[in-house]
């Protein structure tokens, strides 16, 4: 049965590829970079409303999305339709998340949202060197004609991506993360999408700013570096550059507050390495289950002397291990 399933999947993928033979674009910084720039810019041009579905591992989550831009700024509302009620607002890189049931809100600035494209213009951050772009043809997603592009990884240290973009504007309608055998690990897509939704920028802004009746938290983090925290970074994994380090991650558990979070990225995939003091009571359980994964997200741990390192990211487990091995405590 399992073989038949893979055979069927292979045939389906194969039929897409055969219907529109891939026209490989030479791996160059320019092609991939220009295409990514287009994806990035389109969110500043279109106003839309839709239903978004994410499936990873054995979970599937759905949300309702409103996206408005006024040409200069963009604002977005995401209502999670699974689990505890949750509404997330984003105005450029400012994010406020509301949990109506517990009357709590989290206000934060996500620097990562504003990093592209500046970050990838640094030396060594060459997406085109590690991903080859192939155009697979056209498909319909949520009733909208789209172009299909596959980003094929140059090695087994990173996953591939298949991206469906609206033909007219380039808006991403569907995104699949593929393992090294091009099997789908997780996917996210609009199941329904309407452009020019009748909702105003000021209307969403007012909702985002109205935290009356909510207990508002703001995570207190300070920027730091690997070196400042007493660590050395070795060769690591090709393409994965250190991006940022934060200390004092507040993520809901008191013990996590002391940890340091260092972020690495090759431009498309990202990895967080958390460094915290080793605690035999808490860490032994994770040690026993050394290989965790959910969809494309993998997790690896490593003990270094009195420290406990946890690597989390949308990359193969070997990449996490490589990055963990690259971190050594300074003498």
């Amino acid at each position: 049965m399992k073989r038949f399933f893979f055979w069927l999947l292979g045939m389906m993928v194969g039929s897409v590829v055969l219907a529109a033979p891939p026209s490989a674009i030479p791996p160059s910084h320019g092609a991939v970079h220009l295409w990514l720039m287009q994806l990035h810019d389109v969110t500043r041009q279109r106003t839309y409303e839709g239903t978004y579905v994410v499936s990873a591992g054995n979970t599937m989550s759905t949300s309702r999305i409103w996206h408005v831009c006024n040409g200069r700024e963009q604002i977005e509302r995401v209502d999670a339709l699974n689990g505890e009620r949750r509404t997330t607002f984003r105005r450029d890189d400012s994010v406020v998340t509301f949990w109506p049931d517990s009357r709590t809100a989290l206000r934060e600035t996500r620097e990562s949202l504003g990093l592209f494209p500046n970050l990838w213009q640094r030396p060594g951050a060459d997406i085109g060197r590690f991903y080859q772009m192939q155009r697979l043809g056209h498909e319909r997603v949520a009733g909208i004609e789209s172009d299909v592009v596959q980003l094929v990884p140059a090695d087994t240290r990173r996953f591939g991506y298949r991206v469906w973009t609206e033909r007219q504007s380039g808006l991403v309608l569907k995104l699949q993360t593929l393992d090294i055998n091009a099997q789908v690990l997780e996917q996210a897509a609009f199941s329904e999408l309407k452009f020019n939704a009748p909702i105003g920028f000021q209307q969403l802004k007012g909702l985002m700013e109205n935290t009356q009746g909510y207990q508002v938290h703001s995570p207190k983090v300070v920027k730091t570096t690997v070196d400042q925290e007493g660590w050395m970074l070795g060769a690591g994994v090709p393409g994965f550059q250190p991006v940022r380090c934060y200390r004092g991650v507040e993520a809901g558990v008191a013990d996590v507050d002391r940890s340091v979070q260092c972020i690495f990225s090759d431009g498309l995939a990202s990895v967080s390495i958390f460094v915290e003091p080793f605690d035999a009571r808490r860490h032994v359980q994770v040690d026993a289950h050394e290989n965790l994964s959910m969809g494309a997200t993998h997790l690896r741990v490593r003990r270094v002397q009195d420290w406990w390192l946890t690597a989390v990211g949308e990359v193969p487990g070997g990449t996490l291990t490589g990055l963990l091995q690259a971190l050594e405590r300074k003498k």
Partner: protein
Amino acid sequence: MSDHFPLHSERVSALMDGELRGAEFAQAALAAGESPDARSDWDTYHLIGVALRSRTADLRLHDPDFVARLRDRLAREPMRAAPRSTPVVQPQNPPATAVPAANDARWLRVVGLASVVALAFGLWQGWQSLGGGAQGGGPALAQLTAPDLADSSAGASVSSKGATVMLRDPRLDALLAAHRQRGSVSALQMPAGFLRNATFDEAGR
């Protein structure tokens, strides 16, 4: 036969509220264990209690077949007595009306054993899912995945030495949430990554 059969809903309610004492308690507890109707009432009242205390609407009755299979499996597990050397502090004159509490040592042993059995089921199931078991074998046991765990977004499938189990750990939840909030640095982040992360059901935040 006993005056207390069948066990009426009122007495199940009284049993649940801890209002019965002595022989009344013993008879009601025995009847509740033997009568499917009483057990159904027991489950319904507990569900009502959970619904009143809960902030979310995602409630369901437990699967009676699952409980029956677990009970059967527990009954077949060898029960080890506590080592004699372990000092057990007990009141010299326990009051006659003492109500069995959740932290009773015997109950704790049963709970401990139940969690070991549940973990064993999880490991067994993971082994099966990875193709380690005979094809199509043990359909009854294969249904023993707890639905709450399978639904948990923060649960991760753990592969270790050929086994896969669902793990739910608040600390890992927090790290995963921190990674999604701050660690998702990608050129695909702005068009799709943010929506993906905001859509994910981050239970346990």
